[in-house]
């Protein structure tokens, strides 16, 4: 350590070597550098940026994040090494990646009432559900193009049903669940250019729940929808059978008529194909990640896995807290993340036998967690929303949030990813906030 003797006072020097998996213009030479040990992420980022600028004078500064042994550095390097008991004598291998943080706060989309559901699964638009019983399509995240009306009570959950065949034609199906105990299916054409928001009625009403529908989720194939409700049951609905091309046309016609006649009796009604019973309290969240399995979280403190075919429970885990939200994703799409009536976001690995201990716990929120979502493509990133008005972006490699978005003035009720790099969230301040510009 040549530099050690030179700087006798506070700052010790550590020899580091920067490595990366990023493409060549962002790659620094692999020679080792001596850096002061009190550097934080910011300092390391500056060093890398300067090295890159030396190599290429055109280079634009950009923030980087740094990994040591698969863990993000979130404190001065010295502290980090002490905490992880890594020797400072050896040359430290630091991997750098592009920092993940929202750059831009776009204008919020204003609603008439609390925004209780968002779906950003399609990159061209956002589907939101609102407490005034209306669901809206926001094209490009800014213009409201469609309004779905028909629910008599607050919409609690909204979902774009991805159907591979139909997507190409710019015609989409959506499902919403509401506190009026029903689910409604909607059909709309996202390509339409409209001056004023188009008001659309449901083409199908799914009734059968005896209490408020709390959460819905469509199957990956797009022909089924499941819903969790306050009546403690999960119902699976078939949404495919009635979509013969002729039928839809007739419905549309009839619907137009009905709009004129001011009543909606003409809509199709559907019943559930199966009911999954087992929860003892409100089923607050359902997720359908694979064709055969449904995950559900409930206020009875349990997370359950169901086999769709047989309707049997295949896995059950009790966590001790009433749960509000659930998502399945992460490493090989198997990790379960759930948040509930306490400020801790927990992640379990159902493949680990014999233990109910969460493998990760994130506890930076200060109130109930209302939404949690894995990033669709990244294993490591997830977001969470809480009643404390914050949306947080998490990376599994550090216990601190990568970013905290504080744009809501009231409770955040729902949140989702959009277009890979944006976080959308709806809250009790009747806003849909969009944070974009992340490079994940």
């Amino acid at each position, binding site marked *: 350590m040549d530099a050690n003797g030179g700087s006798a006072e506070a700052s010790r020097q550590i020899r580091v070597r920067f490595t990366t998996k990023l493409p060549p213009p962002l790659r620094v030479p692999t020679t080792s550098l001596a850096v002061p040990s009190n550097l934080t992420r910011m300092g390391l980022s500056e060093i890398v940026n300067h090295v890159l600028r030396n190599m290429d004078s055109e280079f634009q500064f950009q923030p980087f994040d740094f990994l040591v042994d698969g863990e993000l550095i979130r404190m001065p390097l010295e502290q980090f090494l002490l905490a992880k008991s890594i020797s400072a004598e050896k040359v430290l291998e630091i991997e750098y990646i592009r920092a993940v943080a929202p750059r831009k706060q776009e204008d919020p989309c204003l609603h008439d009432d609390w925004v209780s559901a968002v779906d950003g699964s399609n990159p061209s638009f956002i589907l939101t559900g609102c407490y005034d019983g209306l669901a809206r399509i926001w094209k490009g995240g800014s213009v409201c193009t469609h309004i779905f009306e028909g629910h008599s*009570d607050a919409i609690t959950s909204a979902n774009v049903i991805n159907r591979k065949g139909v997507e190409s034609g710019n015609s989409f199906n959506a499902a919403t669940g509401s506190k009026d*105990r029903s689910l409604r299916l909607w059909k709309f054409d996202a390509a339409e250019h409209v001056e004023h928001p188009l008001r659309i009625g449901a083409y199908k009403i799914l009734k059968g729940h005896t209490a408020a529908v709390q959460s819905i989720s469509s199957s990956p194939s797009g022909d089924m929808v499941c819903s969790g409700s306050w009546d403690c049951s999960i119902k699976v609905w078939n949404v495919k059978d009635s979509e013969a091309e002729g039928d839809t046309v007739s419905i549309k016609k009839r619907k137009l008529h009905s709009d004129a006649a001011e009543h909606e009796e003409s809509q199709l009604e559907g019943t559930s194909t199966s009911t999954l019973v087992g929860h003892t*309290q409100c089923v607050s969240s359902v997720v359908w990640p694979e064709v055969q399995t449904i995950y559900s979280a409930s206020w009875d403190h349990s997370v359950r896995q169901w086999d769709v075919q047989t309707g049997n429970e295949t896995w059950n885990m009790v966590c*001790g807290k009433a749960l509000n939200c659930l998502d399945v994703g992460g490493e090989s799409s198997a990790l379960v993340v759930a948040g509930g*009536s*306490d400020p801790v976001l927990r992640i379990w690995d159902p493949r680990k036998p014999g233990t109910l201990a969460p493998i990760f716990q994130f506890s930076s929120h200060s109130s109930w967690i209302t939404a949690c979502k894995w990033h669709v493509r990244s294993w490591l990133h997830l977001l969470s929303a809480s*009643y404390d008005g914050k949306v947080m972006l998490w990376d599994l490699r550090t216990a601190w949030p990568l970013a905290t978005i504080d744009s809501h003035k009231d409770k955040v009720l729902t949140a989702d990813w959009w277009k890979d790099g944006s976080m959308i969230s709806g809250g009790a301040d009747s806003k849909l906030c969009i944070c974009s510009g992340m490079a994940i």
Partner: protein
Amino acid sequence: MPATMAKSRAAFKKKADHVEQEGPEEPSENGFVRESGDQEEESERSDVVGSSEDEGSSGEGEIDGEDDEEIHQSAEESDSSEDEVAPRNTIGEVPLEWYKDEEHIGYDITGKKIRKQARKDKIDSFLAGVDDSKNWRKIYDEYNDEEVELTKEEIRIIRRLLKGRTPHAEVDPYAPYVDWFDWEDKGHPLSNAPEPKRRFIPSKWEQKKVVQYVRAIRKGLIKFDKPKEEPRFYLLWGDDSSVAENKRHGLSYIPAPKPKLAGHEESYNPSIEYIPTQEEINSYQLMYEEDRPKFIPRRYESLRNVPAYENALKEGFDRCLDLYLCPRTRKKRINIDPESLKPKLPSKKDLKPYPLRCYLEYRGHSGPVNSISIEVSGQWIASGSTDGTVRLWEVETGRCLRVWDVGEAVQHLAWNPLPELPILAVSAGHKVHLLNTGLGDAEEKMRIKELLHVEEVLTDDAGNSVSAVSWIKHEKHDGITLEHLKTVSTVEWHRKGDYFTTIMPSGDSRAVSIHQLSKKHTANPIKKLRAPAVSAVFHPTRPFFFVSTKKNVRVYDLSKNKLIKKLEPGLREVSSIAIHPGGDNVIVGSKEGKMCWFDMDLSSQPYKRLPAHPKDMTNVAFHRSYPLFASCSDDCTAYVFHGMVYSDLNQNPLIVPLEILRGHTSSNGRGVLDCKFHPRQPWLFTAGADSVIKLYCH
């Protein structure tokens, strides 16, 4: 000569023996020793003198050169310190043979060689000696190579030395010893006397004594292990301690309490920091007599200035009184560790879950929230406030779904316990409203049916005015209004959702009424209540009915229509009552902030009185499924307790205080006005006078 010597020696020895035997009588050992020594030396001196004279007379002229030389040398050595004449030769003490063949014998002090003198012939020297009468005194000094002639004086010294005497006749080696140290006056502890002989020989007296003992042992006069004598009689019934007590005669000793050791402040001239300031002394006057410090430190210039202790006489008298009047009985004291008397409580961790932290608030009321009630499924909560509104909230999000304006301050409200009948009973002023919340959407039929009932009643009502209560359709909202004569304080439903009870505290004989929803009928089954009624509750499983008055709790059997039990809480004013879902345990809260737990199977006295809120207790509540109960009070706190009731009748209920929930702010001297548990989660709702409802979660 030898004969005389031997004689004197024998005499000496004899004398010494004699002295030794009479050792102890010898007054001065010094004197003795000196005496004997003197004697011995005198005799020896005479011997030596005699012999030397003999020798001197016999061989005076036989001293030859060599002998002389030796003598000379020794004399020279011995006298070297005194009259030293530096030798002519300076070669030092080297063997003289080294210079045997040289012409010189050495060097003088200036470094010049000293030449050897020409050797005289033996015969020449002999002849010269014959001629010279002084020749026998001449000695040849080989070292300096010269002849030295001894003086007469020197000869005399040599003679004396040969005789073994001191070289000079005037020196007396046996001069009497003068003891310059005066022993008597100085009292010196040490003695330089030699150890007496008796110290080294065995004591005769001891030997005699040992012989005596040995003989006595042999004769059997001394026995070593005596067999212990057993008492022939003993106290059959006396216990050991009393025996010990009986042995003590006279007054038992009671040690005076140990006073505290005097500190610096009790010095006559303490440091300045011990002296209280005038303010402090004045503040002592405000204290109670017993709290006042007994001693106030003061400073005095010197010990002479310290006055006499003013209470000395009084305290002496008191002490005498104490001694005189002190009861001389010894109290047996049991030392028990106070910690061990504490009941073993399970740790709070094991009793989880219980409400801990406030996560949700329900804001919207503009006045103190008097009452809250949670729907059975736990999805909605209704609250009534003094601002005259009833609000319906969604528990999960805190959203206010509906607001009913009932016109008067809401006293109490309750959900119908049936999930399919989402009806709220609201008491406000003289009226009780039954409000249709419209939540049961799928059960539209039911709701319509209910509405129909109301309309029927409306028609019935005109003729049915006998009762103190009239059933009218609500003007604004769909529902029924029950018009009472006096102010209604509480409304409670029966578990089956058909009956409900209302309390009019000032209604005297009609204070408690039970209404039947399906028949729109009102009855006053309880006529006599000695104290104003406070609240009434139905038993959760059996046809019992609890009416709490300000003094006690009365339990009625509705099927037999009679009083079966009276619970006496012994509290000043009962304010609230809650029944355990099992039905056998009741908690009663009081205005003075105390809570009593009654076990109905045990007695009419409380099983436990629980620690007090500092202010009025406003409500108590049991959880429906978790072993939890809570109390709330005007001191803005709610206490949460663990209250486990066991099905085993032998096991008493386990009550553990768990948590104090804070967060509400006081308004007009009122704090938390109501608390209710969530029916399914271990959550507690509290309604405050600050018009906020809070939800505490685990």
